[in-house]
């Protein structure tokens, strides 16, 4: 067996390439971009908001079943960008883990603990040959008891960071440039500002105005702690507010 010197296998399974890179992990990132959907997350003073495009590929599909925004527990939400099937598998495991945590320790799983668990699982897939990395970037949002609103992003390489604002998917870099300008002086956004920043970032990057049915919006707010997916009417209100503001 001619393994160990790359021999072409460094592209098939997660072993090191001669430059010290993991090609399978890099390809997983490409899969996230190729999904053609961009997502944005913004953290405000007492709320977090995530927005993603809702691309329904066929008119015959039941739109309510097309979603990338999943509640993990009552208080934690997860926005998946990338391969939908991988996202569902990840969400299922995350829900199980969060429920077990609550049972075992008697309190709700904090945001950063869930993010770390997902990231550690992703790391295992980058080191063991028998499982490929998942083609999903996950944004986790929730209100932490001590630290307040939290937004974490976990990627196929196993990295995870807390973010003031972030993006994932096809137009990730453009969105991050847009958000860096907005967040430069550490503004403390109110709930409305948080949601509107997220939505207008997506609009600006994709250069189109949305209808409420074309995007999904998820929020957590300090005042009620619960993860909520906004209804089309609520999204409409925000869209109107943005267009009136401009």
């Amino acid at each position: 067996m001619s393994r160990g010197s790359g021999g072409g296998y460094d592209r098939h399974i997660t072993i090191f390439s001669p430059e010290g890179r993991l090609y399978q992990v890099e390809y997983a990132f490409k899969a996230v971009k190729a999904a053609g959907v961009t997502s944005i997350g913004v953290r405000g003073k007492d709320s977090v908001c995530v927005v993603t495009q809702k691309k329904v590929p066929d008119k015959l599909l039941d739109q309510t079943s097309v979603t990338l925004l999943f509640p993990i527990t009552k208080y934690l939400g997860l926005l998946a960008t990338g391969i939908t099937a991988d996202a569902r598998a990840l969400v299922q495991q995350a829900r199980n883990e969060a429920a077990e945590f609550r049972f075992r320790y008697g309190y709700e799983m904090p945001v950063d603990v869930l993010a770390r668990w997902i990231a550690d699982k992703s790391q295992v897939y980058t080191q063991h040959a028998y499982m490929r990395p998942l083609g999903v970037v996950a944004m986790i949002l929730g209100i932490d008891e001590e630290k307040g609103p939290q937004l974490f992003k976990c990627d196929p390489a196993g990295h995870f960071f807390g973010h003031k604002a972030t993006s994932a998917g096809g137009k990730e870099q453009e969105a991050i440039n847009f958000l860096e300008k907005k967040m430069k002086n550490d503004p403390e956004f109110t709930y409305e500002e948080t949601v509107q920043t997220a939505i207008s970032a997506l609009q600006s990057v994709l250069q189109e105005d949305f209808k409420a049915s074309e995007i999904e919006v998820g929020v957590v707010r300090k005042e009620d702690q619960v993860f909520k997916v906004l209804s089309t009417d609520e999204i409409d209100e925000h869209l109107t507010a943005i267009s009136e503001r401009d």
Partner: protein
Amino acid sequence: MGDSQYSFSLTTFSPSGKLVQIEHALTAVGSGQTSLGIKASNGVVIATEKKLPSILVDEASVQKIQTLTPNIGVVYSGMGPDSRVLVRKSRKQAEQYYRLYKEPIPVTQLVRETATVMQEFTQSGGVRPFGVSLLVAGYDDKGPQLYQVDPSGSYFSWKASAMGKNVSNAKTFLEKRYTEEMELDDAVHTAILTLKEGFEGQISGKNIEIGMIGNDRIFKVLSPSEVEDYLQEAE
């Protein structure tokens, strides 16, 4: 470890007798952010660059220097996710040692066990080596100690060492500045100056991390403001 379909080692000898996967792992380490450690006469200091991918990242959520036991700390260069696995395993091994012997684990023992884990991943089926090198700093009955562990699982005790991107310049700098009688505060200043050598951009308390342990045998990671104080003294 791993599925039966992959119960053969992925790290195998090349015709020239080299383990190429380990060499590639070392390349991955060499492209990681610079980190270094210095053993002083009365303590050890470890430090690293903390360059984050964007200003949008909440730097308070990231800590590269980790505590393994109250008197042992570790920093890495290379792939962050891999380092988390090793930190977790090391912490567990330290606890298991304490449960068995009712004594805190000596630094050499913990280093040896961590290195063993890293070596296993170069020989077991279906896994790749870790893409990190670790600098372990501790203070036990044998005094202050600094160890470097590589992806191959080999480890050495160092008076001062560096890893990652700027390793050759950093090591040359350290060789010139190191003295055996150096005290902990001097070591911290030297560490800062060494990091400054290869640093791109403006160094501050927010884009480096410093951990130290002294005669009190408590490993602590300095807060950004404490780092700023040392930075100003080193000016």
